[in-house]
């Protein structure tokens, strides 16, 4: 499989009155064509910023992004514009991501209008096709977002993202705001689309059960850094980093017969503003030692399984 996207040492810092906020700090990964990379972490871990930086909705502070082996950081606008059609985004909150003053039809048509490659009839045909693809009934084509329920809104968001026939989509918590039964409908839709169109996803979420289900590979982030990255089954079957372990053990499992030992992290997430060098989990980690205050290296412990923890050899049995 060819690689569709690669990020190397990507950084995104924001200036704050109290110092730079390390939203994304030295993140490296790649995504193969037709596959899904899941990005997991709790609020404030920088996963959404990462998605937006990949799409250059934020200017990266440092690092390189390659799309189909072509560097898109620092390339000029016209080259980038064509590539941009191939990269799209689906947002978490379908309410704030749909313009409340535009009807469903107009929202889906907008990217086509901006692209200026089709005439009106072609656009109309395309919009109808998109509505069928994502399962939006014709009768709501002139409804406004506030008149729709969450599931339909998200379908509109997906149709808009698909309008320009992208090859790569950043899905930023696309099902988090939805009820369980609707969530399953949308997940199925996303997986069907992937199969049909050969899409690649970067699937950002805090919901571990969803990410396990949909991803080929999973990247766990904590305070802007990648702490562990592995193929989906490997990560769930053999988590190594203390944060990944705690995260996995914290999910309530809908099964009354399973009782697991829970690893509880002390305290709460610290501030990503002006962080000290070293492991950012150290203050909450039960395995922390003095070595944890030195900068951590990400190491490959088994094929494709990367961990950023200085005690990896001791913890990995």
């Amino acid at each position, binding site marked *: 499989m060819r690689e569709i996207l690669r990020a190397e040492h990507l950084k995104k810092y924001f200036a704050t009155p109290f110092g730079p906020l390390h939203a994304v700090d030295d993140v490296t990964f790649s995504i193969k064509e037709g596959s899904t990379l899941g990005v997991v972490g*709790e*609020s404030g871990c920088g996963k959404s910023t990462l998605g937006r930086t990949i799409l250059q909705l934020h200017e990266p502070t440092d690092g390189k992004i390659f799309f189909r082996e072509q560097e898109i950081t620092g390339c000029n606008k016209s080259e980038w514009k064509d590539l941009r059609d191939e990269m799209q985004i689906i947002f978490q909150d379908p309410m704030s991501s749909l313009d409340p003053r535009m009807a469903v039809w107009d929202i889906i048509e907008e990217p086509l209008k901006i692209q200026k490659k089709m005439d009106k009839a072609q656009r109309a045909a395309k919009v109808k096709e998109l509505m069928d693809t994502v399962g939006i009934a014709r009768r709501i084509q002139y409804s406004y977002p506030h008149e729709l*329920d*969450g*599931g339909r809104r998200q379908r509109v968001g997906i149709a808009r993202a698909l309008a320009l026939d992208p090859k790569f989509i950043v899905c930023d918590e696309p099902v988090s705001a939805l*009820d*369980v*039964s*609707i*969530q*399953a*409908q949308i*997940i*199925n839709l996303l*997986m069907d689309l992937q199969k049909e169109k050969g899409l690649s996803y970067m699937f950002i979420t*805090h919901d*571990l*059960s*969803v990410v*396990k*289900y*949909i991803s080929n590979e999973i990247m766990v982030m904590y305070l802007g850094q990648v702490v562990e990255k592995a193929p989906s089954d490997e990560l*769930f079957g053999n988590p190594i980093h203390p944060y990944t372990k*705690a*995260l996995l*053990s*914290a*999910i*309530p*499992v*809908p*099964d*009354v017969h399973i009782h697991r030992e*829970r690893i*509880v*992290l002390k305290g*709460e*997430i610290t501030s990503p503003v002006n962080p000290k060098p070293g492991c950012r989990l150290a203050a909450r980690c039960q395995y922390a030692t003095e070595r944890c205050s030195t900068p951590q290296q990400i190491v490959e412990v088994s094929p494709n399984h990367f961990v950023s923890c200085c005690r990896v050899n001791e913890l990995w049995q």
Partner: protein
Amino acid sequence: MAETSFLEVKNLVVEYTSDKQVIHAVNNASFSLKRGETLGLVGETGAGKTTIAKTILRILPDKAAKIKAGEIFFEGEDLLSISEEKMRTIRGNESAMIFQDPMTALNPTMKVGVQISEAILLHNNCSKQEGKKRAEEMLEKVGIPGQRFNDYPHQFSGGMKQRVVIAMALACNPVLLLSDEPTTALDVTIQAQVLDMMKDLKTEMETSMIMITHDLGIVAEVCDTVAVCYAGEIVEYGSVVEIFDQPMHPYTIGLFGSLPDMNGGRARLTPIKGMMPDPTNLPKGCFFQDRCPYASDECRKKHPDLNNAGGTHTVRCIRKGDEQNA
């Protein structure tokens, strides 16, 4: 008697009126809770879970909401027929509620300690110092240093705020705790902390609890019995083992089918098609008919009753009822 009907909700009907439209929020809901037990009230947005909890405390918005019918027996007394004054002595004292969003459930201009002691002073004949002391004890109990009595809500993180809200609810050692999605707004690791703490405190204080949630994982972890809500009524009820091992109502089955399996492979999810019926215009017959894979003509004609399915397990579906009877 007291053992079995510590809390009993019977045929509760609640409606909201907005812009001349009647929203049927709760339709004939009945369930009971034994002392010391935890009941999970499970369902999706708009299923009427929160309305049921607010009705038990009688804190529904006066003008919009109307309790049309039903009885709520709490320790043998019908809460819907006692005076407002009497009700006030129960609220926050014998029965308390934890709200979903800790960001908005705390008064931003009042010290958290004062907010905790508010209920203590209200229901106990004690001095302000005594109230403060007990509020500080409550803070310690939920893992917050007592010195933070004088801090304001904005000085706490989300998880800490929810701890304050829990301390507030438990301040008067209530026998019944209504928890409305207490961890939904929190991150997973914080959720785990808060759930553990709630479980410990519940055992320590011998509190009975109604846990409102949409998360079946949480239900499996903390509940003894489960009531599945759909369109304002209870469609399935039973012990947590009965429901999880042998879900019977097509809706409950659908909920389980919607969840990705954490342990198994990547089988295609089997979600429920369509969505919840419009609460202003509920269909005749079974409310689930349009989404049900087994719906027959009979389901469209007759509204099903709760049928016994063995043990404490009951289910509101003619199909399962038939099977059971046959």
